[in-house]
């Protein structure tokens, strides 16, 4: 008669264990769900902040600096080995330093030895349209320039001042092909003209990223209306991207490097093969 209670205990124990197991099995399922409210980093298309002379909508991370040194050799490749295809010089130089005051904006101070043009500009990203097919970026750049060494004029003569405004639309197809459309307005395009001239140009640039390190680029800045120095600038070349450098080697019919001078047009014709060798080096500086 003592068997019955132990069986009862066993049955109850098993029942409790089964209940325990089933309850704990349910409890192991978490009520956690992924929230999709993640703030992603800013959209970036072109890797570099500039094409050849045209800007891109790319900016830097806040507090980063960018140093630029650009050369355009004045003799063209047509001048041949006698001037080492241009490398003998003389050369037009731009030196510039940019500072990212936010993730979306850069201020840049630059100087070119062409009429000692001092250039100050601000670039700001306005709008990013993220999507899987063709992401878009919109930015604006505005700048003021002073030509401080013009024959027969005072250093700070008001007629030597220029300013410009650019609207930068960039798009990217996949991870490799990026294009830019940059309508630009330049005021006082030809500083020696008795009447103030303006130029309105429609910059186009494209870049194909073959590898992370190596890509090819093309740029064309036709004048739509207003002043143009003889020809539309065309540039093409390669870009090498390293940790913090962009190194561009180009051929171009324009030997000008500062924005207010470049936007006014080129003196050589691209079709004649009067191409200058040039390079841009930018170095990212993080302190």
């Amino acid at each position, binding site marked *: 008669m003592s068997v019955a*209670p*132990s069986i009862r*205990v066993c049955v*109850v*124990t098993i029942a*409790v264990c089964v*209940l*325990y197991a089933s309850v*704990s099995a349910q*409890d*192991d399922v*978490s*009520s*956690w769900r*992924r*929230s999709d409210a*993640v*703030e*992603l*980093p*800013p959209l*970036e298309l072109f*890797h570099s902040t500039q094409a050849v002379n045209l800007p891109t909508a790319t*900016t*830097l*991370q806040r507090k*980063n600096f960018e140093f630029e040194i650009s050369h355009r050799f004045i003799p063209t490749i047509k001048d041949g080995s006698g001037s080492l295809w241009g490398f003998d010089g003389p050369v037009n130089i731009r030196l510039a330093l940019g500072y990212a005051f936010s*993730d979306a904006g850069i201020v840049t101070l630059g100087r070119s030895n062409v009429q000692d043009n001092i250039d100050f500009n601000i670039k700001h990203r306005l709008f990013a349209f993220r999507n899987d097919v063709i992401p878009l970026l919109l930015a604006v750049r505005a700048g003021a320039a002073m030509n401080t060494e013009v024959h027969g004029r005072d250093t700070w003569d008001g007629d030597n001042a220029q300013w410009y405004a650019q609207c930068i639309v960039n798009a990217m197809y996949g*991870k490799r092909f990026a294009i830019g459309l940059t309508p630009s307005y330049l005021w006082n395009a030809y500083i020696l003209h008795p009447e103030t001239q303006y130029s309105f140009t429609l910059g186009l640039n494209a870049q194909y990223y073959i590898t*992370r*390190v190596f890509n090819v680029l093309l740029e064309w800045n036709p004048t739509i209306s207003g002043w143009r120095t003889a020809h539309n600038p065309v540039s093409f070349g390669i870009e090498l*991207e*390293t*940790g*913090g450098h962009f190194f561009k080697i180009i051929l171009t019919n324009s030997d000008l490097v500062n924005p207010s001078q470049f936007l006014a047009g080129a003196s050589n014709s691209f079709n004649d093969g009067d191409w200058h060798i040039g390079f841009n080096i930018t170095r*990212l500086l*993080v302190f």
Partner: protein
Amino acid sequence: MKILLLFFLATFVAFSQTVEYHVDKSASNVVKFISDAPIENFEGVTSNIDGYLIHRSNDVTATSSLYFEVDLRTLDTGIGLRNRQMRDDYLHTDKFPMAKFTGRIVSASEAGVGHNVTVRGVMDIHGVKKPMEITGSLAPSGSRLRLRSSFEVKLGDHDIEIPRFMFLKIDETMKLELDYYLIKVKG
């Protein structure tokens, strides 16, 4: 007597509830990926960690389940270009945005007010799963629970290739540091 034992067992079961914690996203959570390559040291930092922890109220190892995921798209190394290179060339975050860990606490020892724990599980980075054992600490912090852990991940284990001709110097072994807070949602 047996009835009494049974009663105790039942009581024990009744009081040993499942406790569930979720990552408190409003807390100052920090996840660091530290690369210590010969030429270039850098850290990728993000606060975007999420997940949960479940265990029995009387025992952190009993029927425990720990899950966390880190949004690799938001890793910030302080240089935009380097972030992009990390995302596009190494981690391929368009395909594999998250680093995920699923595991359970296999042992715990009392350490001050909290526990030192060993968690066994599977790390999923770059779409490649790898069994891992990580150690860390769990300690109450106000109304929350603070989890801290530091461990190493080999990039090769997750098929993350380091291209030879690459200017971003990255160490094959990445050190991960987790420091985040969990808030009780159940139990």
